[in-house]
Each structure stands twice: as C-alpha cells, then as structure tokens.
C-alpha cells in the first residue's frame, strides 16, 4: 500500500482561524475516499490545501511525488464564464493540456479521445453547442469529460453531485468507479450518505477536526455523525492561540 497523499498535522484556515485543524493521515494510492461532514466542516478547505490554492497555516500536505499537473480538481462552484463563446468540444479539449501544452496541435488521435470523452459522459451530439446553452447537469457532464481527458493520478471532486438529478449523478458516479478501477486516487466531498455507503470504500468524517477516518462502515456510525453535527460552525474571535 503506497501512499498518494500524506497529511502531517495539517492546519488550514483563514486569517489564523483554523477550518481544518490538526489533520494527520494517509490516503493510499488508488483509494476512493468520500469526505463527509456538515457545511463549514472544512471539506472544500482541505481540497484547496491539497491542490495548493491555500497554503497551510500549520503542518503540511505531502503529495508523494505528484506534480501539480497530475492532479485534477473540480471546484464546488466552477469558475467558468458561461457567457464566453466556446462550444462543448473546445471546452472538453482543454483537458488535453498535459499532452498539448501551450502550442501542441490536436491531431486525429486527440480528436478521437475528445469524442470518446464526450461520448462517455453522454453528450454525443452536443459538440457544437455553446456552453451558455447547457443546463447545470449538462455543464457538469462537460466538466467530467474534461476531467477524463486530464488523465490525472489524483482526482479531487468538491461536491460534484450537488443540484444534479439522480440520473446524471449515477452516470457521473460510473465514471468515478471507472477511475477507481483504473487505480487512480479519488477524493470526493459528498452529502449523500447513502451514496457514500453504497459506492465509497473509505470515508473521512470531518468537522474542522477529523472525527473519524477509515472504512466507510466504521466511520459513518450514528455516534460519529452526532459528534460531527455538534461542531461549532462559527469562528470565535476571542479564541486563544492553539497550543497543539
């Protein structure tokens, strides 16, 4: 079991207030882990720390040799300008950045891969549609097709199934399973506990502090969930400096 990600006493936060507090642990290569917890538990913050958008205020994240471009990250609210005149095909083709870079051309092989990715998310026929005309679920499918092409070792999905209907969520979940079968490491922040229990072997229950981390069945117990729910969401302006 080789490690793909290692957290060492990791504390992440905003203006000295911790949002993820003293997290220790290892994500093994090829693991499929759900990150669960109430709103404000630090799930997104943890992901930003992993992909390097947020610098730790204590401890460290060890990527175990991964380069930033080996990580694919789907933010909770994608920062996409939906009014920009670009079609589905071009949008998905961006996922090939790792092989085309700044100047590389897109040849027949690449075109085939783009069409395959679009087909894999069920959007065949939408290639020339401008992204401004897509529904929320279709846009999420586009972003998943782009993730497919990124061919990343570590895939980080921040609430990928929010505001998405059951059928789309199931289709996209199949892709997550495919990545898992391909031995890629996947972390996904989720709220649907039934989905987590059914499809995710590992879970991390977070409530600023890590409440439990391990096999999903051991983590999502009534007792642990209650503990997570009692977490205090607000920052305390009068908080003392953390001694740990």
């Amino acid at each position: 079991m080789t490690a793909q990600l290692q957290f060492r006493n990791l504390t992440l936060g905003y203006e000295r207030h911790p949002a993820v507090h003293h997290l220790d642990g290892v994500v093994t290569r090829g693991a499929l882990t759900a990150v669960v917890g109430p709103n404000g538990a630090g799930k997104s913050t943890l992901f930003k720390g992993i992909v390097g958008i947020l610098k730790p205020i204590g401890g460290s994240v060890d990527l175990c040799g991964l380069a930033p471009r080996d990580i694919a990250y789907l933010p909770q609210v994608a920062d996409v300008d939906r009014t920009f005149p670009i079609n589905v095909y071009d949008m998905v083709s961006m996922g090939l950045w790792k092989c085309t870079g700044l100047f590389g051309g897109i040849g027949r092989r690449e075109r085939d891969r783009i069409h395959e990715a679009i087909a894999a998310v069920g959007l065949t026929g939408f290639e020339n549609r401008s992204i401004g005309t897509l529904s929320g679920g279709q846009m999420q499918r586009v972003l998943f097709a782009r993730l497919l092409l990124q061919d990343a070792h570590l895939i980080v999905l921040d609430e990928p199934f929010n505001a998405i209907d059951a059928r789309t969520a199931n289709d996209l979940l199949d892709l997550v399973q495919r990545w898992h079968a391909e031995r890629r490491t996947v972390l996904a922040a989720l709220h649907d506990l039934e989905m987590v229990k059914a499809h995710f072997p590992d879970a991390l229950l977070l409530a600023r502090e890590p409440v439990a981390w391990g096999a999903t069945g051991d983590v999502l117990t009534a007792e642990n969930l209650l503990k997570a729910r009692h977490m205090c969401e607000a920052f305390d302006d009068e908080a003392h400096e953390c001694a740990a």
Partner: protein
Amino acid sequence: MTNPYDFLVSPFIEFEFMRRGLVGTLALALGTGPVGVILMLRRMSLMGDAMAHSILPGAAVGFLFSGLNIFAMTVGGLVAGFAVAVLAGVVARTTELKEDASLAAFFLISLALGVTIVSMGGTNVDLLHFLFGSVLALDDQILLLIAGITSISLAVLALAWRPLMLECVDPAFLRSVSRAGAPAHMAFLALVVMNLVGGFHALGTLLAVGLMMVPAVVARFWARDVTAMIGVAVATAVLSGYCGLLASFHAGLPAGPAVILTAGGFYFVSLLFGPVGGLLRPLFRRSRHLEA
C-alpha cells in the same frame, strides 16, 4: 449626381494623404480588431479606455524633450502605458482596491498630467494633435510603426492564444494546469498598450481606443464564436476607416472623429438589427418555436 467612382475611389487616387490615412487605418484595424475582441470577452472594455489616457504623459514628456519626434513620443507612451498597467495591477493585488478602481485613479492622474505637460511645452494645436491625432498626416515612419506593431501583435496573439482564451473561460482551470496564465496576461497588456500607442499617432489619445472597442462591440452582435467575432471586428474597423475618411473628405469633417463616428453608426445598426441579440431581432423572428 456624381459618378460613384469619383465619389468613392477618386479621393484616394488623387490625394496621397487620403491613401496614407486608409493604409494607416487598415493596418491599425488588423491589430486592434483581435485585441479589442479579447478585451471585451475579458470584460475589460473600459480598461482599454483607461490605458489609452495613461499613454498621454509619456508621449508628452517625449514631446517636451524632442518636439513632434515620433520615436520619442512612442517610447514615452509605451513606458507610461506599461507603468500604469503594472502599477494598477500591483495596487489591486496588494490593497483592498479592485483593479478598475486603481486604474481609474491612475489614468485620471495621467490624463491631467499629460495635458499639463503638453500645454507647458506647446500650443493648443499641439494639444489637439495629442488628444485627437491626425489621421490625414501619417508619414512613412508612423505607417511603418503601425504596421510593425500590428505584425508583432498578430504573432504574439498566435503564440499566446490558448492561455489567453482559457483564462477568459476558466481561469482556475488554467492555473491548475499551467503557469502560462500570468505571462500571457502581461503579454496581452503589452499588446493593448502598443496598439493604443499606434492608434494614438493616428487618432489621438482620446479616440485611439475607439477603433479598438467599437468594432469589437459591433462584432458581438453578429458572431457567436471568437474567430468570427475577430473577423467582423476587423472588417468593421476597416470599413469605418474607409467610410470615415470619405465622409471627412466630402463633408469637411475632422477625419479622426469621422472614422469613429462611422464605427458608432455600425454600432447602432448592429444594436438594432444584429442577429445575435439585436434589439429589433424579436420582430423578425419566426413566431413558432421548434418542437425540441
């Protein structure tokens, strides 16, 4: 009724200054068209305006030291434009001020400073030349300068196209796959400044941005993809140059404003009748919607 040839073509055959004006606006249009479209897509339309004004003090200092010397004014304008772009960016990143607010402060200071410097060293005629340019007095040096700037612009745009587009659509994704975003952005700002300095010689500091932004805004009403938009923008700018020069010739209008007013005319037509979101478009639409 005059013969259309006499009306439409002869002025350019008989008068060299008309030919030079036409060549100058044509060369400018090829560079400012794509730059303007990208500025618009990045929601930086007014940024072009601000940058245009910020060129003035630099060009004015060049003028103060060596008169109406094109190289001194060009170098001065470039330096001032870059300085304001970089300073505004630094202030936006290090303080609470947003980029548009810090740019607003800098360009107003620049404009006032520029007008003061020109007035100290020259006459009101010089000041008018600075503010509104002289598209009918383009000499070889200026034409070469504009053509050079346009050539560089097209080459740089071709090289930085991918990161530039990606930064418009999905900046967070670009940051996650490449570090090219920031250098591409800086190169693009440099192009904006260069094209404005080129436009400054022909149209002056107040109107230089006109040939950049008005055709770009026109293009938005006619095309749905970026390549077509750039085509429409360049065509609009070229046509504006041609029609504006003719109007100025026949009606005795000041040439620079006539060019921009023509572009403005295209804008109003597009605003009303443009196939992509024109205001009167719903009147012409077939009334029945599709089945699926």
